[in-house]
């Protein structure tokens, strides 16, 4: 089964790059999982779009013995029952599906648009950040005036925290995958003109309020429950995980967001957020989810091309600023 050019015993098979299609590598992950990867190790949303294209294609055929798939940035973990479906047969099927996939540009990905209210620099993230200063690290350079939001501004060459807020609200956030903890989204900006980046906490922050929103590297995450964390926090939103399923949004399961959702942030005050959260739990708040939309990759790629000079300009401004800002 191992092809002659396979470089590792962990690699089951490869499909060489062809035209627009990146190389596909199929790896063993024990006798019940395989891991499929696209292309080089680079952060490129087009690879993620292709993963969703493949995931849709898998969903449309019946593969006896296939249990589940886990789409991620440039990879997909495939869970299967090797007593029913041989890995050889599984990979042959995946290769056939690969051959039938349209080019990334021709993909249309079903993508819900989810509007979430956010209170920037809210009292709960502020309280936990201040606990960190008191009990964990007094001289943390990533905490300026008791919060992380001004540090995010400094690190990205933005003039002040208001510009950070403007940037975060200016783009939709693509949820590339869910994981680590139940319901935790890994989101990336669809408009790279607003792609803020930050280093992570050092050491990790022992406390983070449920609903906190933060950025680590290029990724924005929402904390589904109160937990330790390492991302630079900028605000707090409404629950994305509710064990008790107190709102119709959690009717099916306690998890709000799905991979390939797009999140839009709507700034609200601290008081407004508290009020909305209360209505989430009494069941009267309706989450703002547009379920029927799709991401047309071709128009998106055209858009990227249109803004590429602005993106380069922002990246230059960022890298200039980063030089002068200490890393935690």
């Amino acid at each position, binding site marked *: 089964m191992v092809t002659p050019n396979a470089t590792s015993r*962990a690699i089951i098979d490869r499909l060489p790059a062809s035209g627009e299609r990146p190389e596909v590598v199929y790896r063993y992950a024990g006798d019940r999982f395989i891991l499929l990867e696209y292309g080089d190790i680079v952060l490129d949303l087009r690879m993620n779009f292709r993963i969703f294209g493949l995931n849709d294609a898998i969903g449309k055929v019946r593969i006896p013995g296939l249990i589940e798939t886990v789409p991620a940035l440039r990879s997909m973990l495939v869970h299967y029952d090797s007593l029913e479906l041989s890995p050889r047969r599984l990979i042959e099927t995946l290769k056939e599906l690969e051959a039938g996939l349209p080019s990334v540009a021709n993909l249309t990905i079903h993508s819900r648009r989810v509007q979430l209210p956010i209170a920037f620099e809210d009292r709960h993230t502020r309280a936990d950040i201040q606990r960190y200063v008191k009990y964990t690290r007094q001289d943390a350079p990533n905490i300026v005036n008791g919060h992380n939001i001004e540090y995010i501004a400094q690190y990205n060459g933005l003039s002040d925290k208001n510009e950070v807020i403007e940037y975060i609200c200016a783009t939709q956030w693509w949820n590339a995958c869910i994981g680590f903890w139940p319901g935790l989204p890994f989101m990336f900006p669809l408009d790279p003109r607003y792609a803020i980046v930050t280093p992570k906490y050092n050491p990790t922050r022992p406390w983070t309020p449920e609903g906190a929103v933060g950025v680590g590297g290029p990724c924005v995450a929402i904390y589904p429950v109160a937990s330790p964390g390492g991302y630079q926090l900028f605000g707090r939103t409404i629950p994305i995980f509710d064990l008790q399923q107190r709102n119709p949004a959690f009717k099916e399961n306690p998890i709000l967001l799905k991979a390939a959702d797009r999140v839009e942030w709507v700034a609200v005050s601290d008081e407004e957020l508290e009020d909305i959260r209360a209505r989430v739990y009494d069941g009267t708040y309706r989450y703002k989810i547009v379920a029927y939309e799709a991401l047309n990759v071709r128009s998106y790629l055209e858009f990227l091309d249109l803004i590429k000079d602005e993106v380069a300009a922002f990246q230059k401004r960022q890298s200039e600023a980063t030089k002068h800002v200490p890393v935690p």
Partner: protein
Amino acid sequence: MLEVIEGGIQTTVQEYPGRVGYLNLGTYPAGPMDHFAFRIANLLAGNAPGTCALEVTLGGLKARFNERRVVSVTGAAMQPTLNGSSVPMWQSFEVKPGDLLALGMVKAAGGFRSYLAVSGGFDVPEYMGSRATFTVGGFGGFQGRGLKKADRVPLNPASAGNKLAGRRLRKELIPSYAAEWEIEVMRGPQADPDYLTAEDMDLFFSKAWKVDRNSNRMGIRLESHKWQWARATGGVAGGHPSNILDNGYAVWTVNICGDQPIILVADGPSLGGFICNATLVHASTWKAGQLVPGRDLVRFKEVTIEEAISLARRLDASVSERSIEREY
């Protein structure tokens, strides 16, 4: 109903194979840490596969029955007693209303978890398609948590029982829980030569790894090690060569988090940004569930997919009536 007198260190309601199908929402399957001992316990008590039983970690459970049932205790030797008199393990016996079953603490004999099955099984609600307790998310099982003093855990109606008493597992099938283990794994998904060197992998397979004290249902930590690494850094994914762009984690994979290998087990994280250099095969995962933290040593043995599948068939086939004999 089972009335808990003492909950012990960590006693949870589990179900095999657990909450399968939610990895893409960030949820590992939970379920028993040792699926072999768990399934045998149910078999001895005359229960169908998929019936809920208790997982008792380290020991200390005391519980009273208020009805006539047949029960069995398997797994690590916890010197079970019924009303103070010793009762055998790996063999079913009858309990009457008012009987007190007590499990002692695991002794030097080895093993870390035992399983208590009761004819009919424990009656707890399904949550996200399963009744297994997921300790990280706090859901499933009995109120999403370990059992505590005064809990009253409902039982399903049992079919007429006393011919179920006196069933035992054939002696040659009772696993031995030594302090040194050999655990079968498959190389990958991220191994040599692309992530680690061939020497790193040779050492991984030859070293006896000490199990860290800080191990639980999320991860079994092994001692840290200075790896050579095949790459200088993780590139876009982070500064350390163990960093990769986040991908789904196979259940029972060996995750190398910085320098430390951690076997990701039943309640682990579903996705993350560290390499996994080997993955336990279905037929060996139960061994991870019996490792004694702070004491046991583990050697990893590489097997091929064909070997893994044949081991899995043999193990699953042994969970059958043919493995059961009568005491008299």
